């Protein structure tokens, strides 16, 4: 095993150990169910913002975005912008009222607002669906990281990350998770800013530029192992060592099956996977590539990301841990800042990867860009190994934190709504279930680009919980029937699109854009169905709508707030 691999493995092990230690320290303060589920609502805005950012910056953010920028250029910048802007939507419409509602999960919010146990159950199902879909790319990301840095098979990484995460959650619950995740945010930020800075220094001193009417070039002699089938586009003829045999590729399209080894000489023009801009100059400007969708896809993506953030269960559960509505708002604003700093660094890494890691454009494995940048910039000496270890640690932290947040929220919902006891022991059992299900999935399903997989989940969240929360908080006319209809329609449409997209049986044309990015259709449909059905069933408005609405919007100092978790625990005698 080469030195880089050992360094990276050590760093990843250290992250896991540090997380477990911080988590187990947290156990000392986690004694009640309230601690486990909502950290007893005593987390201050800055700590909470660190935890939210740590939890939110997933494999998609840490690896996926840089890879998309490497491939698609400026068009991919909508991903980080959307991920961040989602928090603004959360500040504007949801943060403070949701915290003041006194509910402690989305299903609980649904029930407290609309007095419907059926709706509560449906929401429980969707929390699990969204959480599990979101866990998929996290576990696969762990597998990819391990494969990239050590060459071990990817299932090892998936299983290892699932075990570590479930163990952390089972031992510590929400309260310790808060500290673990705040720690992981800063680790991830460091692991992104340091390589970005170093790469920028090299870039400036190299006096290289992106503004060339040519494809990127290989800096050195490079061997590319193609792991999945790709279609490459060649614009200038290039000599390729195809499985050891020299072939001259004229401009055109080339199908390369998985398992092929391609060898390029230093300075050779890089063939690019089909659909991405080939020339550097095109890569610099918007809508130059042959991407499917163009404007339509961009807008659908913006809607999904902007509105989907507020529907993510692991993000929402964090806002319940705020002490009050005002702190909830402030937390979200701090998160905006923290995400911004991180994504600027990601953008730099992604753009510079085009110079230093062009071979990823051939293999299509662009998600590995961040992981490979250190050795590409610094070479394979100790400096490169050290930086590579830091980045691997950051990537590992990204899966651990997002996965543990997701598992906490899924387990919270399962233990309170399915097991119905709210006991700590059941929470632990639920956590194991919450981790096992996606692990099985991740070992069987084919991998999409992380950011695209995550964008699909955002679309489901935006089509189900976003309308429920927004209308529930702001419109007194919402009824249980309307909410059920809206959530089901939005959920089935978007999850169906996700299923088709994941299965790989996607037809061409506009339909394919809408299958990969269904939000443009499903979100307005869900809102519409919810509003129309609610209007038709106007008489089913709960009698206490006015009080509930007031409680959500009145500042705490009027003393109207309630804590539904406390009430529930009291009623179950805990």
């Amino acid at each position: 095993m080469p030195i880089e691999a050992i360094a990276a493995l050590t760093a990843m092990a250290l992250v896991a150990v540090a997380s477990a230690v911080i988590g187990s320290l947290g156990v000392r303060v986690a004694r009640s169910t309230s601690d486990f589920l909502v950290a007893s609502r005593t987390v201050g805005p800055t700590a909470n913002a660190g935890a939210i950012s740590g939890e939110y910056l997933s494999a998609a953010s840490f690896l996926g975005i840089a890879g998309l920028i490497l491939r698609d250029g400026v068009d991919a910048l909508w991903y980080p912008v959307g991920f961040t802007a989602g928090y603004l939507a959360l500040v504007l419409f949801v943060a403070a009222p949701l915290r003041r509602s006194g509910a402690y999960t989305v299903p609980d919010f649904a029930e407290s607002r609309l007095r419907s146990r059926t709706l509560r159950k449906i929401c429980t199902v969707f929390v699990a669906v969204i959480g599990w879909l979101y866990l998929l790319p996290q576990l696969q990301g762990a597998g990819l990281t391990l494969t990239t840095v050590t060459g071990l098979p990817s299932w090892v990484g998936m299983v290892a990350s699932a075990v570590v995460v479930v163990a952390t959650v089972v031992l510590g619950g929400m309260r310790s998770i808060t500290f673990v995740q705040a720690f992981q945010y800063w680790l991830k930020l460091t692991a992104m800013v340091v390589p970005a800075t170093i790469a920028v220094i090299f870039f400036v001193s190299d006096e290289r530029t992106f503004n060339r009417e040519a494809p990127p070039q290989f800096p050195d002699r490079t061997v590319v192992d193609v792991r999945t089938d790709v279609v490459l586009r060649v614009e200038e003829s290039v000599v390729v060592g195809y499985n050891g045999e020299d072939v001259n590729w004229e401009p055109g399209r080339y199908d390369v099956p998985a398992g092929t080894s391609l060898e390029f000489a230093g300075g050779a023009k890089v063939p690019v996977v089909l659909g991405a801009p080939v020339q550097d100059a095109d890569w610099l400007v918007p809508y130059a590539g042959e991407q499917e969708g163009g404007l339509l896809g961009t807008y659908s993506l913006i809607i999904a990301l902007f509105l989907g953030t507020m529907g993510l269960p692991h993000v929402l559960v964090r806002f319940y841990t705020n002490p009050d509505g005002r702190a909830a708002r402030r937390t979200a604003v701090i998160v905006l800042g923290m995400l911004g700093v991180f994504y600027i660094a990601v953008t730099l890494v992604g753009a510079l990867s085009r110079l230093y890691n062009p071979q990823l454009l051939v293999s299509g494995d662009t998600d590995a860009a961040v992981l490979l940048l250190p050795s590409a910039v610094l070479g394979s000496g100790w400096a490169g190994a050290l930086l590579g270890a830091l980045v691997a640690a950051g990537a590992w932290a990204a899966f651990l934190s997002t996965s543990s947040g997701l598992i906490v929220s899924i387990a919270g919902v399962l233990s309170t709504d399915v097991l119905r006891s709210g006991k700590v022991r059941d929470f632990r059992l639920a956590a194991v279930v919450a981790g096992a299900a996606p692990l099985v999935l991740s070992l069987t399903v084919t991998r999409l680009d992380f950011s695209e997989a995550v964008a699909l989940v955002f679309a489901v969240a935006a089509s189900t919980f976003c309308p429920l929360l927004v209308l529930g908080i702001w419109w007194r006319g919402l009824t249980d029937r309307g909410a059920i209809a809206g959530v089901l329609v939005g959920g089935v449409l978007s999850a169906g699109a996700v299923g088709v997209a994941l299965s790989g049986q996607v037809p061409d044309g506009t339909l394919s854009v809408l299958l990969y990015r269904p939000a443009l259709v499903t979100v307005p449909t869900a809102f519409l169905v919810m509003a129309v059905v609610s209007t038709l069933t106007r008489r089913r408005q709960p009698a206490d709508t006015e009080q509930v609405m007031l409680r959500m919007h009145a500042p705490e100092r009027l003393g109207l707030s309630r804590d539904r978790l406390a009430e529930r625990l009291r009623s179950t005698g805990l």
Partner: protein
Amino acid sequence: MRPGPEDDGPGDRYDADGDRYGDRDEDGADSGALWLHEEIQRRIAAGRRASKGRHSRHEVASSTTSISYVPRHSTATPGPGALPPEPVSTPARGLPRVPAAWSSPAPPARVTPAEAPEPPAAAVVPADAPAPEARPAPSPRAPSPPAEGHRRTMLAGGVAKVPVEEQGAPPPYRSGDLHGVRKARLDAVPIVPGDPDAPDPDPVETMDSRRVRVVLSERRGGARPVRTVVDVQEGTGVGELLRSNLIGSQLTVALRFAVGTGLALGVLPVLFAMFPEIGRTELLGLRLPWLLLGVLVYPFLVLVGMWHTRTAERVEQNFADHVQD
């Protein structure tokens, strides 16, 4: 449910603050309403101050009714150096029973005579006074701007040392000069502000008058809200109006910000597609789309978020003021 008092470490500062919102005592509402009116008059006279600090103080008390309530504050607040309040003709009438309000929810174990505030001495900020850093930190001693400065001071749990006279205290507290009487009593009876069973020696007098007033105003947020709050809660007349006004204006604010931001960001893809030359324009050494989407959009979003938070908090505060007036 609550792990226990010892779990309430220094990190749990919201608990420490929240406890100011104690449950109210029996006749708290009546005397509170009466007193409330006077307080409002005084405040109006003193001039409305910047809303932020005040709001922040109040809002912290989310946990009033929650399980995390630990009335540590009840013992911490009355700082050792607190000046006695201005004279009150009788301890019972016209003044709400603050001490009882403070003490009623206190688990006896936490309140020991040792924690009782010392009778008048030099004004010092108690070392253990919870100092909520998350909010605009009030300077415990800054007396200006007069009325607000004092309010904040007390709310922060520090000891306000400025004599009431300096801030033009309202008449209600001056109905007679019982200074001597009170001091005598103070000397005679060890006052335990947190003890529900204390023989009511008018513990109000162990704190300075400003502190008293604030506590009263916050008591409005307890289990028995003043009449307007009840109105609002039950949807009668004025209350209904206030409530829909609150939700309506908050929604307007949120929508305005959302539409503004949505337009600012949403117009970009169309512009980029329609005018490809934008993509070739360089500014500050970067292509315009990269500069906009890669860098500038983040400070923009943070600023919008901060701006909205301020606006929404102002709306909330206006609502609370209306309700409580």
